[in-house]
């Protein structure tokens, strides 16, 4: 058989020009809804979204700037606010990398191996989603608090968890644990183990396989999970509130600081600090949208958020 005749094997799949513009359905009048119904549905969805999502977001920024830029910046320059920003960033900087490591190893174990208790592990990963954050905070108080199981031992060794930074970090890790694992498990399950097997037959070690094959396959899903985890870690209120003790300038994270300011009727300052959180959320959202736009196909397998 000559290679020259062998067109079926050599030519890439050709897409007719009229289908290259986008999904077929958009061009097919027979299977789309009439114009008025489309307008109604889109209009309804948009007005609902602006009323319940966009309006509150805008009000955060307008309230923050109501008394002018001077008040806005002085609220942010206040030492307690600065310490809250620092604490939030510190807790996030510890929680996210740890959850990255936990999440990848848990997803790896669940998606690529068969073992006893796998279903139990999956349930366990979902636990922080199903348990109220306040309850998860209380769990740490019960364990590490002065009256808790490990309390006496901890006070003997002068190591504080509750009402201190370690407690806040622990609570943040607990609450944000599922984000990365949940993002990766369906993606890795869909990809199966063939690529890894292929790498092994070609002589790669387990470590080489992970770095050269598995990680590149999941990198966009992973980044997406990290973004979500990061957003939640910065914004977490309930669990952190229970373990923090609200010591100003020491154990107040950004969300807790906002609550205190608001309770003290310092609305402009409260909204000014809130605008920082909202800003961070918008940056996260922007990055997420960028990822979806650039790598939509690879994310599609796991996109449920």
């Amino acid at each position: 058989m000559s290679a020259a005749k062998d067109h079926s094997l050599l030519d890439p799949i050709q897409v007719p020009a009229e289908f290259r513009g986008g999904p077929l359905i958009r061009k097919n009048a027979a299977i789309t809804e009439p114009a008025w119904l489309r307008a109604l549905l889109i209009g309804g969805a948009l007005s609902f979204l602006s009323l319940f999502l966009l309006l509150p977001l805008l009000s955060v920024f307008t309230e923050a700037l109501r008394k002018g830029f001077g008040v806005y910046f002085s609220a942010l320059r206040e030492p307690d606010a600065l310490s809250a920003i620092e604490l939030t960033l510190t807790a996030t900087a510890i929680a996210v990398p740890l959850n990255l490591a936990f999440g990848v190893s848990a997803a790896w174990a669940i998606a690529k191996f068969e073992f006893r208790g796998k279903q139990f592990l999956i349930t366990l990963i979902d636990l922080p989603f199903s348990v109220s954050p306040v309850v998860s905070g209380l769990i740490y108080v019960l364990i590490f608090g002065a009256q808790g199981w490990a309390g006496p031992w901890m006070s003997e060794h002068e190591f504080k968890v509750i009402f201190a930074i370690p407690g806040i970090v622990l609570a943040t890790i607990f609450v944000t644990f599922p984000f990365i694992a949940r993002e990766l498990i369906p993606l890795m399950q869909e990809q199966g183990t063939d690529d890894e097997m292929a790498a092994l037959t070609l002589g790669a070690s387990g470590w080489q396989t992970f770095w050269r094959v598995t990680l590149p396959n999941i990198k966009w899903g992973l980044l997406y999970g990290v973004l979500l985890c990061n957003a939640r870690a910065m914004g977490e209120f309930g669990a952190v509130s229970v373990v923090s003790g609200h010591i100003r300038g020491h154990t107040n994270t950004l969300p807790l600081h906002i609550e205190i300011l608001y309770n003290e009727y310092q609305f402009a300052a409260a909204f000014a600090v809130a605008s920082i959180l909202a800003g961070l959320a918008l940056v996260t959202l922007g990055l997420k949208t960028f990822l979806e736009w650039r790598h939509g196909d690879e994310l599609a397998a796991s996109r449920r958020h």
Partner: protein
Amino acid sequence: MTTEIKIRGVKKTFAAFPALNGIDLDIAGGELIALLGPSGSGKTTLLRAIAGLETVTDGQIFFGDIDATRLTVQQRRVGFVFQHYALFKHMTVLDNIAFGLRVRTPRSDEGEIRQRVLQLLDLVQLSGLEKRFPAQLSGGQKQRVALARALAIEPRVLLLDEPFGALDARVRKDLRRWLRALHDKTGVTTVFVTHDQEEALELADRVVVMNRGRVEQAGTTDEVYEHPATPFVFDFLGDINILRGEVSGRSLRLGGTQITLETDGIRPSGPVDVYVRPHDLRLMDSGGLEARVDTVQRSGATILITARLLQGGEIVYAEVSHLHPIASKSKNGDVLHLQPARYEFFARETHEAVKTLQDVVPNAVPEHRERSR
């Protein structure tokens, strides 16, 4: 030729399901062998056991004189081509093929690797595509990249899991011939898994027919097709008519006719099932089995006749050339004389229909079904 791979008493059990039930097989160097069987016959499990992707519960696998049973996948140095190719999506064709060379010899000379990859691309007739990504290739091209990648590590044996399963019919035919030519050129010992008997018979030197975790028959394509050792093999390799017969001494009674057996060996007397392929039924002017025509259907150059035996009432199918003087004039209600030109018979107790894993273990875990496919 030297024996390249020896498989001795290999067993593999998933949960309680025996996927491999004592396999003995010798594969000679340079051979092209097909593992043929239905779903759940254990053919893929055997292939993966040879590769080291599956541990065996019992038995041994030798590569030459080395006991490879406990060797890791990496140590076995086998080329494995997966059903869906498992190309690394984020790497170019060049990087895919170079992967095995790079991980096996750290700090190897990139220029040399590149040259080797280009040679392999030439071998699989994909020169010029080294910068493409897998997503930019057609199914047949992906298949050949996967082959080149497996060949790059100069494997002891090339293992292909349903190599044509994911391709459409036309590409499959082309690629089959192409693979045979490639094998003749490289001479690498090759084992491939298929459930398609036509593919196995056309491509392989030898066919290993598997059923329920056992080897039913291993032989050249002629042997398994012309002399099936078991009813299962006869059934699996093509269409069949099963007719009731009776052996007594040296004669076989079949639908009112007596046939004298040519075998010298003594066959036990008793009821038998006689297996005849539709195209081995010859249309005669007289004698043979008398059957009344039910339907006559034309399919290309073949005429398919369905008829009912006058004695016994069994339905038989016959395939005859459209040039045959009787067949071309046959119509419903005619009485034909059919002479089995070639047949096998098996004592009725041993008769065993083609069974799938679902029949054997109705509650088998889906994963095992998948794996044993």
